């Protein structure tokens, strides 16, 4: 098997793809958004419970998609719990850079937001395999676009 395929479909991704965590609809969610990838028609819904001080207390999702999009959504719901909304935004920027290989400027405020999140960022690096598969980047980022839309109070997100 080719190295690029091995890098893309690592054990952790296959595991999250087959056994997604937090694949549920929490009754007490107070934010939700629908995500849509028009290229493939994949759709998912992200549910968040955000406290009054802006902390993500619970994160979950529903929907179906390819191994990459499901694994990315699953890992995202685990990573987000306990983070502030601002940290969630910052982690999305990190994920985006990991998937595209593009650096989007480490400004000072983002640096502060990410302080202490090294483990979370390390976990996301496993998605770097999509860099070799440009058409699959949207699969990896769909859940995150949707999460950001939910936090920002929008109802829908698309990868376009």
């Amino acid at each position, binding site marked *: 098997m080719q190295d690029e*395929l091995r890098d893309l479909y690592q054990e952790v991704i296959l595991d999250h793809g087959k056994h997604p965590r937090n694949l549920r609809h929490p009754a007490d969610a107070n934010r939700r958004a629908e995500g849509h990838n028009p290229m*493939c028609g*994949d759709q998912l819904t992200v549910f968040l419970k955000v406290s009054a001080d802006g902390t993500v207390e619970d994160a979950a999702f529903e929907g179906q998609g390819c191994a990459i999009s499901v694994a990315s959504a699953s890992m995202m719901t685990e990573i987000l719990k306990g983070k502030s909304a601002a940290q969630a935004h910052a982690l999305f920027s990190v994920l985006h850079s990991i998937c595209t290989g593009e650096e989007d400027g480490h400004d000072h405020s983002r640096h502060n937001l990410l302080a202490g999140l090294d483990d979370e960022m390390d976990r996301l690096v496993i998605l770097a395999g999509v860099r070799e598969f440009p058409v699959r980047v949207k699969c990896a980022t769909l859940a995150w676009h949707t999460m950001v839309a939910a936090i920002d109070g929008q109802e829908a997100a698309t990868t376009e």
Partner: protein
Amino acid sequence: MTHSASSARAANSARAAAPEIYDVERYRADFPILHKPSRGKPLVFLDSAASAQKPRQVTETLKSFYETDYANVHRGAYALSERATARYEGARETVRRFLGAGKAREIIFTQGATESINLVASTYGRKFLEAGDEVVISHLEHHSNIVPWQMLREEKGITIKVVPVGDDGEFLYDAFEGLLGPKTKLVAISHMSNVLGTVMPAKRIAAAAHAAGAKVLFDGCQAITHMPVDVRDLDCDFYVFSGHKLYGPTGIGVLYAKEELLNAMPPYQGGGDMIASVTFEKTTWAPLPAKFEAGTPAIAQAVGLAAAIDYVTGIGLDRIAAHERDLLLYATERLATVKGLRIIGSAPSKASVISFALDCAHPHDIATILDRSGVAVRAGHHCAQPLMQRFNVPATARASFGLYNTRAEADALVLALETVREIFG
């Protein structure tokens, strides 16, 4: 008549006397792109249903046309424009003959089948359909034969009725007949499904629709590449297809319509070429087919389409169909050996398009992994989301076989699918 057309016809008549074996390698040699590696592996191109590759006969025709005969058409009293006009109108005649239409003026060149259907919806639909009138489509339609009718529904208040498909992807003819009634004004059905390969009983559909007093449109995008089509034998009112799926250029398509309908329909777009005379007070329309071809048309693309038609008729649509039938049966049999693979669509009347799903992997993951083996298949909803919903799948992987595909390529597909199982199994 072009030289290639006459030689093709000569070759055809020779074959009629002594049918020769379908020499797929000879035809493959006409498609340079098939011999270029993909991702370091021999290309196995199984996505002709999305768009077919182009033979040298088409690309060389485009090149020589631009280099020797090109000018705008239907104006300029100079030699080049005369030659370009003759080639463009010659292409129309080639299409007429290919479709078995009675008159060249019944052939309208468009950008593609999508524009052809939109043209019918915008002109025939707007003028002749009223609130409460019914348009019958099927669950198998491509979005291009759904959305234009929904837009017309928004505007005119028509009703859309949908013929269901069976569990094997077959067209449920009895249910279709049950939908016909006094309010049915148009039946717009795909001649062949781009997802499941199902071939519709077009002639029966047309007869039943006419008996109910409705007009009939067939979306021939897929069928036109897989079988001989004769619009007068089908007795359809409208037939549409795109050039690029028929081994021709992009940006060119065809609307066939019966002359009396085209005469009754208002023009589609206004502009140059479609008028008889213009004053600020009153403009009169040009006769057919110019009435529906406003602006400078896709001249070279039309000439290229004619070259593609000469190419496939030179081989013979019957022979192509037989070759593809063999590939369909062989690939179906081989795919059945892949553990956890399910073919979606097994209608008795089916051409060489195979949609499938694996129990262990999503179609996008399948397509990504196959691609690394040089195997190009389509994954997604194939612009047929209602059909995905019907079969309760988010997407399918689709392998489609054209005149240049081989049994060995079906084997390569099956082998590459084993890599998917290796990763996901």
